[in-house]
């Protein structure tokens, strides 16, 4: 059996996949966290991937990119530089290799969400022009589509993923978790939005099942269950015994988002193992050791 390689092993999601699947080879300029046992191949950048010629692989998990919508929404060039250009570079290399599957990640925010309250499946319309971040992800999907004949691919439209990380991240859960160990009063923008929160370890299983499937195309990855941010903050508040307050600020995304994950289930028979509470408890307990 040929290997699976993963780009982006030093980010947020990469180390979680690598830890659960030690046979996956990490590729990148930065090593994954040292406690991981995975083989790592150092490359300076994506401009020269000749080093990969000698590696026997046929599946690729590509996590290079930026999910920092705060920064990208201020500057489209960052979206082009970090999301669009790396994908072109890897596709240009992979088109000459015999690849069984390539997976990359865009966002659930691409959907139009015409009828809030109704679940959103892959068949729903998209609105790729709503902001810089979403547009950069749309460009990624167009690139994947262009190379689909030479590089069979899956585009994962990922829901709100959360989990433990040593990195400073702009997302909701890591921000709260970082704050609970440092501050007494924690603030979030708004506790009303309803989102599909998926624990990173569950997402890792889904991704590995997908990379081993025969499916190509777009697929939603989430739990299929949505909760208000309030539920999440009250769980973290109970574990940490810290007050988490809402600033009641306007949020940029939709207020209610429900993901249809029937396609994911059909392809992979995947089920989430962690409830929201279990995932947050694990996140808290792991991150407690970082502080």
């Amino acid at each position: 059996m040929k290997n699976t390689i993963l780009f982006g092993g030093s980010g947020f999601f990469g180390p979680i996949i690598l830890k659960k699947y030690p046979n996956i080879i990490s590729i990148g300029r930065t090593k994954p966290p040292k406690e991981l046992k995975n083989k790592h191949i150092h490359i300076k950048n994506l401009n020269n991937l000749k080093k990969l010629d000698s590696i026997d692989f046929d599946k690729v998990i590509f996590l290079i990119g930026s999910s920092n919508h705060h920064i990208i929404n201020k500057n489209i060039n960052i979206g082009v530089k970090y999301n669009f250009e790396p994908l072109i570079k890897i596709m240009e290399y992979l088109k000459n290799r015999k690849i069984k599957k390539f997976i990359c990640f865009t966002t659930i925010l691409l959907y139009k969400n015409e009828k809030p309250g109704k679940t959103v499946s892959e068949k729903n319309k998209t609105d790729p022009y709503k902001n810089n971040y979403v547009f950069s992800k749309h460009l990624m999907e167009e690139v994947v589509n262009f190379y689909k004949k030479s590089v069979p691919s899956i585009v994962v439209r990922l829901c709100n993923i959360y989990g433990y990380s040593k990195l400073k991240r702009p997302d909701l859960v890591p921000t709260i978790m970082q704050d609970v160990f440092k501050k007494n009063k924690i603030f979030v923008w708004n506790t009303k939005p309803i989102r599909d929160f998926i624990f990173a370890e569950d997402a890792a299983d889904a991704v590995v099942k997908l990379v081993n499937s025969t499916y190509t195309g777009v697929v939603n990855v989430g739990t299929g269950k949505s909760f208000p941010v309030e539920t999440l903050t009250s769980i973290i508040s109970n574990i940490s015994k810290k007050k988490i307050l809402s600033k009641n600020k306007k949020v940029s995304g939709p207020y209610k988002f429900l993901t249809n994950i029937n396609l994911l289930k059909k392809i992979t028979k995947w089920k989430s193992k962690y409830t929201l509470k279990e995932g947050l408890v694990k996140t808290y307990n792991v991150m407690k050791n970082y502080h």
Partner: protein
Amino acid sequence: MKICIFGGNGFIGSNLANYYLKNNHKVYVYTQTKINKDLKIKNNFKIKYNEKNFIAILKKKFDLIYFLSGNSNQETSKSDIYYDLNSTFNTFISLLESVKKSKSKPPIWFASSVVVYGSNNKSLKENFERNPISYYALTKYLCENAGKFYYDNFNINIGIMRIFSTFGPGLKKLVVYDTIKKINSSNNFKVFGTGNEIRDLAFIDDQVKTITLLCDKIKKPQGDIYNIAAGKPYTIKSIVKKLVKISKKKVLFKFTKKRRFFDTKNFIANKSKTNKIIGVINKTPINLALKKTYNSI
């Protein structure tokens, strides 16, 4: 009007520039490659396409901008995607970013191409699914997307021209030029393809008429796409026969029956959306258009 043409040294760009100059407009032409010295355009500049230079140019407060810059040939981009991305996509994004930051926000018309449709033998409507199969086509398609994005989010008026096969004096590539060259140099030659491919071949004067009328009628384009074409398809075989007849030479020709990966069988334009705006223009008869082109080479 004060008009800016990025890519105004190219075939369509230079014809547009000359049209506006003849009609007493003020024209500024910019290129990122080289100035065509045969063109008698006073304000013709070679610049580096970046935000700093674009912002400086925008201070001239143009009434209309055309963006025809970048690679214009599928053949040259077949092995290097970065050539297209750097010369077309990145520079177009730089221009749009500059307009976003500038006080002056003239309407911008981007020259896309029929090739974004990919393989589709139907009469092509602007709302058809796109299926770019070459780097050149992908880049044009991404630029179309960028146009829509900047209109939606930053209220920059952008129009997209999907330009079909265009020929005429001055163009030194594609089937009409290649065939004339072969007729003039050999009495037994080969033409690429099967001859049964259908192209919506438009004469440059008619394309300029269509483009200028469209931009005149739509003062504030809203990210929409318009086919720029003759609206009359011909087989390549019939075009070659017409050229041979015009030449009055006794020549034999046959088709190679070969295809490049990006070659499509037919490109037939549906012009109803464009015609609804500009009406039906009086086109140059095909024989006259081919004769003018033949005589120019």
